[in-house]
Each structure stands twice: as C-alpha cells, then as structure tokens.
C-alpha cells in the first residue's frame, strides 16, 4: 500500500516523538526527575513504528520492559507517559505502574511488562478474543532476542499456532539481552528459523528501515486478519544506549556503538523521503519542532505535577484492604 504525504509525516512524527521522548527521559533521569530505572528505545524507533503504523486503537499490543517506543507508536499520550514515568498522579496509570508498566486499554496497549517473556502469552489471549469475536483485529507481542529464549515465549508461539489466532510476534533483535550477546544466548543458528519451526511464517527484516518493517507487517496483517493464524517478524535493530540509562557498556566497543548510531533510522528515513521528493526537510523540521515542544511541555508538566496521595491511592484498585 502506497503511503501518502500525510502517512509519511505521521510515520516521521511517531519515530521522532520516540526519539525526543527517550532523549528527554535520559536527561530527566540524569537530573533525578525519574525514579527507579529506565530502559529506553533509542535506535529501535523504526521497528515499533513500522509495526504499529497500520494498527487501529482496537488492535492490541503487548510490550516489554523497553516499552516507551511501543506505547508512542501505538498512540499513547506522551504527557500521560511522562507523568507516569515520573511517578505522578496524573500519569496514565496514576503513577502506580511507572516505566515498566505503562498500559492504555483505550489504545489497545496491554502493558509494558517487566517480566521477560511476560507478554507473548497475554497477546495470544488478546488474539483469541479477536478470533472468537470475529473482529478482524490482531494482537501483537513484542519481545527481544533475550525474551526469545524464555519458555513462556515458546509456549505462546505453539499455542497461537494450535489455536489459529491472529497473533503477530515481533522479535526485536538488538543483539543483546542486558549485557549478553544474542549470539551467545540464542543457541540456534537463526532466531527466525527457530520461530518458523513452530509452524508459522517468520520474516527477517531490517529494523532500522521503517519501510521494510511496515511492509513486512503488512504481510503479517494480511495473513492474520484473514484467518490464516499467527505470523512473526524478526526486526534486526541497534540498541544505541546500554541496557538501562546509565549502563557503562564496557562490554561493547566504541566502534560498535558508533556503527549503531551510523545506522540511525531517522536520518535514513529523511534521506529517503526527501530524496524521492515526497517530503521536504522543512516538512520534517516542522514536525520535529512541534514534537519537541510537546515533549518539553510534558516534561515540564511532569516535573511540576504532584505525586499520588498515599491516603487516597495506596490501597485503591486492588479489591481488598488489610493492615
């Protein structure tokens, strides 16, 4: 399907929002405005945006500990996210979830997940709902290369095949699970081939190329929406930063890090669309300026916003009070 100018703008806006948001997270984290730890999505923008680009609010995704990018790509409000990550009452989960538990049922976002391998089974269930209710919608499970080794992920693949549900498994292979290389932890010669052996198609796609990801996802959607069962993608990505913000990364050479940056999906997108005269640099710069303003506003509002009130909020939203 050909992309209109508006589509292209939307794609760039989405990718750049992730970029700007995550860089702001880095900055706010350094300044002590973000409690706990944060895993940012820098470098993987094209994967999340390519996957989510043609999803509607009532298509579902299940995400990971590195979920900010998936949330933004799925349309979750950036200010609500920033407040959540800062632990503020106005956050999208009232400050109770934080970075690793952002969810938005109205946007089909079933939650970041701090358990590696937590989301794939849940996505199978969301896909089951679509199958039984004949909605024509899908559920996507994002996982990393590390998560591809978790038993729950394998079970989900098999279950999806057996139940024939419209689940799409996206393995974002950024080469590392924390500090250990995927080439070590994935014993198989090929992650994708291992997935395929479960009885579903799995495409390997350049996760730094928005267009490639979106096209592959188009085939996945075509397949899943037409009752042909699950589908999978391995999007090969680069992680720009460490596992978490602040990871010194002695286990990666400066050269590798430089190569990762050199593969940056955003300039690549810019070059492609300006080169083909579909959008101008001015178009893209305008988007960037708008997005930066939104992120700036979110961050400023986030810092100023109040934290939840223990008396009101601590024991709410769980069915019982004790002690």
């Amino acid at each position, binding site marked *: 399907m050909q992309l209109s100018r508006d589509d292209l703008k939307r794609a760039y806006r989405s990718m750049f929002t992730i970029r700007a948001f995550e860089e702001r997270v880095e900055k706010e984290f350094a300044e002590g405005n973000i409690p706990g730890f944060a895993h940012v999505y820098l470098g993987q923008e094209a994967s999340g945006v390519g996957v989510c680009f043609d999803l509607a609010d009532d298509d*579902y995704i*299940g995400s990971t500990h590195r979920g900010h990018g998936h949330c933004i790509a799925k349309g979750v409000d950036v200010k609500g996210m920033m407040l959540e990550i800062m632990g503020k009452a106005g*956050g*999208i*989960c*009232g*400050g*109770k*979830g934080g970075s690793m*538990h952002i*969810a*938005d*049922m109205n946007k089909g976002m*079933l*939650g970041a*997940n701090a*358990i590696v391998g*937590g989301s*794939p*089974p*849940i*996505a*199978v*269930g*969301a*896909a*089951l*709902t*679509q199958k*039984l*209710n004949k909605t024509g919608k899908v*559920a996507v499970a994002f996982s990393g290369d590390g998560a591809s080794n978790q*038993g*729950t992920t394998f*079970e*989900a693949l*098999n*279950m999806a095949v*057996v*139940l024939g549900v419209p689940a799409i498994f996206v393995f974002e292979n950024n080469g590392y699970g924390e500090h250990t290389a995927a080439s070590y932890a994935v014993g198989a010669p090929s992650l994708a081939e291992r997935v395929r052996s479960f009885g579903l198609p799995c495409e390997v796609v350049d996760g730094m190329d928005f267009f490639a990801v979106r096209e592959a996802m188009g085939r996945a959607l075509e397949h899943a929406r037409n009752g042909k069962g699950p589908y999978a993608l391995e999007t090969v990505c680069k992680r720009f930063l460490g596992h978490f913000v602040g990871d010194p990364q002695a286990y990666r050479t400066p050269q590798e890090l430089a190569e990762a940056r050199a593969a940056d999906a955003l300039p690549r997108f810019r070059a492609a669309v300006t080169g083909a005269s579909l959008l101008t640099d001015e178009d893209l710069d305008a988007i960037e300026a708008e997005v930066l303003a939104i992120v700036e506003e979110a961050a400023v509002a986030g810092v100023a916003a109040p934290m939840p009130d223990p008396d009101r909020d601590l024991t*709410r*939203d*769980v*069915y*019982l009070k004790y002690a």
Partner: protein
Amino acid sequence: MSRKTYLQAINEAVRQEMQRDPRVIVLGEDVAGGQQSSGEPGGVGSVFGQMKGLFNEFGPDRVFDTPISESAIIGAAGGAALTGLRPIAEIMFVDFVGVCFDQIYNQIAKFRYMFGGHAKTPLVIRATAGAGFRAAAQHSQTLHPLFTAVPGLKVVMPSNPYDAKGLLIQAIRDDDPVIFLEQKFLFGMEGEVPDEAYRVPFGEANVAREGRDVTLVAFGAMVPRALAAAEALAKDGLQAEVLDPRTTSPLDEDAILESVEKTGRLVVVDESPPRCSMAGDIAGLVADQGFRSLKAPIKRVTCPHTPVPFAPSLEDAYLPTSARIEAAARAALAYS
C-alpha cells in the same frame, strides 16, 4: 432443588453461566479431550469430568483443549479477559501452577493495580486441590496460602456442593481474577443444590455449626472433618462452632472475630504445611484484634512441614484428622 454431587454442581455452574453469557469460555488441557484423535472428541471433559458435556453443548469456539503449556493457558486467559472475554481456565491439578506462576501472581493479579485501575481481568482459574488420593508430592497439594498471599487474587475453597455451585457462579461473574480450588476429596459429596443459578458471595463465612464453647475454623475438605470433630465433642456436651470462611481471600474477618468473642477459644484447621499458612494467618488476626476475648492458646491443626507422602499410611497421618481436631479443641477447652 435436587441432590447433586460436588462435581455436578461445578459442571452445572459452568454450563449455566455459559448459557447466560456468551463471553464465558473454557480452556485447558483435555477440558474437551480427544482433539484430533481417531475416536470421539469431546468426551473427556476434564480428568475428573468437571467439564463433561460442555464441548458438545457449546462447541469448539467456547470450549477448547490446549497444549500442555500452563503459562500460555493462563496468559491467554489473562489476555482474553483484558480484552472482553470471561475465560475459565483449568489447571488440571493446582500443583502445576509452578510452571505458570508468573502469569498468575505477576500478571493477572497485578494488572488492575499496576494499570492504575484502568484494566479489569475477569478470569477464573479452576484447579483441583488436596490430598487423600495417593497422588503423591506433586499432585496432592492445596496451595491456597500461596494464592492468598498474592494481593489481587480472590481464593475460593468450597466445602460442599451448594457452595461449589454458588461460589463458582460468583467467581465467573466477578471482575477480578479468582482462584477456584476444587476439592478433589469432595467430588463425590452429595447435597441439595438448587437447579437455578445463584451466587454465594465472597468473604462471607458460613456458620456450618453453631456453638458457644470453642470456634473451629476450617476450609474446603477440612470442613467435614471439623464437623465430625464437633460432633464428637458434642457427645461430651462441648459445643463447638464450626466456621467455614469459604474464601481465604477476601476473608470474613468479622465472622471469625465475632465467633471468638463468643467462645474465647480458637482452633484453625488447615490442609497445608504449617508455615505461612492460613492457620497462622487467622491466628495472627485473632491474636491481635480478638486478643481480649481469648481465653486459651490458639491451636493450629495442619499438615506437617513436609511434602505430601505417597504411602497411604503416611498420607493418612499427614492430613489433619477429626481426631486431631478434636484433641486440639479439647486442649483449648482444658486451658485455664
């Protein structure tokens, strides 16, 4: 009204709720049975027959078999619940929750809270529980303390056919995740069970027998044993009150405290190893909030701190007996 077994009560509850609400589905290993076998599919209906006939009545889109992958079963049920269905997932023996515990305690139990109250997870996990079947260490546990310890889960232990039906219907209509522990030992127990649907609310204890001298609190398969102990005590004119909380979470704290206020003496019977069990849980409650009424040490009658042994001689000694319950009650009564 008619006499039904505990097993039939469970089957009827699910059937009626499936008739009533198209969002209710059943999934698990062999809940239908015989998928892609050479003979008749659907005839198994769970290994003890709890789901018998449902596959034939509701078809493969409402009742379906799964691979042996409990994490995927519970995760799929959780995801389906988040997105509008009301799944009933079966874990054949509750002992198997170890392979899917993350999906239970970190996922479905926490969604509502972690997501700031913006998600609900209406999901029932049915699992058979309890010893006495010579099924050894990995097929005989109760594990209700494990679930009770998890904020966000409701935990149900029906002790008779009437409650089994009413509590299961409540569980299916509940918007929170519920662990429904079917007491294997009671499957054959008969009782009056109304034909129509009804609910037994959670967190409301049943006074299974009234008495003024000592309070016996028991759950699930231990309730009949506590009643037998009460019967024996009655022969000596000792009036034991038997309280069946029905759900360990939420727990009817008021009923327990009120009963102890009356009797001043408490025995908690728990089919579980003793440590961090419901026996301690309730003792802790009463030793704090009911302290002034207490006239004697709180007695806990539990299993020993061991796995469930296989040999019948050992398993019989493993389980709390009515004799042990009676002895504990007598000790509490004798104290002054």
